């Protein structure tokens, strides 16, 4: 992995706070599933670089899909052409290379589409098997790069929770339908925790191997902060940045819940104070 200083070659702003960034200047060799840590030159706050799965790497150019969530990603989504970003990578594990004739089902949600898009684009020339994809989001705005996915995979099902694009429902609903017939050799999922948990379960029920690309809050991206812990069977943790982000779905305790809880709080009126979370045994910080 390297630390590169790259220029913003192109920025395409999308509705819903998404932006597609094309960066260039120095070559980077990476495989689908790997990620980079990205930061702008803006002093100490926000401090930490943010992780992004590579959506494509071609020669001296790489493509990232950014969603403005916190201060760091908001700034990255708003960069201008010509701005310089520090890019550290490629980091982490990659998806298994598709074998000749292997039939893949990609299941993506929101920004989770980025590494699947890279995989689809790379896998396509050598497929011979099949490359179907399910792409889900809350609304049609939450399907960024849908056209790129449609071009890269041969059979894409779009599905939104409000029905504003494609079918109405969850990615797992579409997956259930597609997996009804046993014609896939591998499921590859990336998206919100609940989506990946559902994909992992459905694939396991059908006996289909399932790879996921994990997302977790991390500070460093290269195995030194130990922040991105994801619970594993047996009571331990794996680290999303260095054991992952791509891991076999069976290595994760999905019931443990999202490592970045997004569950909405109960309305204030219903309960004056947020119920104190059952105290987890504090072991200390370090």
């Amino acid at each position: 992995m390297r630390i590169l200083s790259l220029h913003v070659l192109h920025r395409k702003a999308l509705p819903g706070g998404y932006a597609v960034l094309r960066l260039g200047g120095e070559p980077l060799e990476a495989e689908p599933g790997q990620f980079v840590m990205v930061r702008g030159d803006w002093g100490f706050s926000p401090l930490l670089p943010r992780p992004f799965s590579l959506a494509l790497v071609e020669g001296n150019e790489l493509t990232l899909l950014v969603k403005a969530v916190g201060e760091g990603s908001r700034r990255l989504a708003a960069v201008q052409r010509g701005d310089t970003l520090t890019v550290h990578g490629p980091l982490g594990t990659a998806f298994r290379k598709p074998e000749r004739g292997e039939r893949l089902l990609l299941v993506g949600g929101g920004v989770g589409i980025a590494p699947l898009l890279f995989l689809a684009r790379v896998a396509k020339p050598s497929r011979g098997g099949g490359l179907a994809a399910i792409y889900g989001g809350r609304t049609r705005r939450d399907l960024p790069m849908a056209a790129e996915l449609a071009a890269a995979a041969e059979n894409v099902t779009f599905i939104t929770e409000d029905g504003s694009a494609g079918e109405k429902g969850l990615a797992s609903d579409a997956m259930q339908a597609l997996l009804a017939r046993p014609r896939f050799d591998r499921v590859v999922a990336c998206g919100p925790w609940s989506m990946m948990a559902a994909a992992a379960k459905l694939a396991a029920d059908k006996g289909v191997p399932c790879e996921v690309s994990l997302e977790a809050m991390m500070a460093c991206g290269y195995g030194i902060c130990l922040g991105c812990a994801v619970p594993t069977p047996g009571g331990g943790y794996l680290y999303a940045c260095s054991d992952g982000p791509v891991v076999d779905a069976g290595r994760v305790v999905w019931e443990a819940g999202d490592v970045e809880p997004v569950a909405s709080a109960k309305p204030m009126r219903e309960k004056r104070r947020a119920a104190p979370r059952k105290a987890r045994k504090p072991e200390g910080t370090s």
Partner: protein
Amino acid sequence: MSGERKLAIGALALRNPVLTASGTCGYGLELARYFDIAMLGGVCTKGVSLEPRAGNPPPRVCETPAGMLNAIGLANVGLEAFLAEKLPKLQAAGATVFANVLGTTPAEFERLARKLDGRPGLHALELNLSCPNVKEGGLRLGTDPGRVREAVAAARGATKLPLVAKLSPETHDIGALARAAADGGADAVSVMNTIRGLAIDVRTRRPRLGNVMGGLSGPAIRPLAVRLVFEASRAVSIPVIGVGGVARWEDAVEMMLAGATAVQVGTASFVHPRAPLDVLVGLDAYCKEQQLAYHDLVGAVCLD
């Protein structure tokens, strides 16, 4: 001040005053993929306990203004794996190794020190007397001068290795803690560990860390660390190692002017893997330009 004075922690001469901070460089080997870690004054490893520890439930880190909170929970491979897998590689890399050790009682520090004594490739021990939120030991041990002296003395009796006591900022009298460490036989003190903080997500109304509270680090805490280094260095004659928010060479110079003999670069390594080396290169350029030895900077703040 004499430019002749050697930069040393006990009997250990350091090649320069820039070290990594424990918990921010893994076992040092992770940084070795980015630069030659033998170039640093020292590498302080992730805290090692007698037994392996899995750490706290996630989320373990969150970002705060110019800093971050962490509640890792001292996840580490344990002493046995450290000795078998990590230390030989650090030795091969030529690093000056400070093993940060984590005990909850003086007896545990004694056992850790005894087991690490005389190990090839190990140059010093840093006693973690100050991890916030640990039930046993941690802050309760690290904020009580009597217990600090006791823990350091226990380790002192079990090893000839230079001993560094890492102190907590959660005290009204850092001088008393530093003196207690010196009385116990410490060859230096590291000032400071993280300070406890809390961040709450206003949408979920939940703490942003699984462990509720966490240790605050990064540039946000630097003025606090500089103040504590200033106070500690005036309370003891043993060297003070400045830790807390050092991200640039200027920050290292500031720490040294406040009284630090050496500095540790911590959270900055999360932002940039070469941060410790960059701090060293900048410090060297500054010293050369000013025609100063490292030691000329130590405590050289002008107060008149």
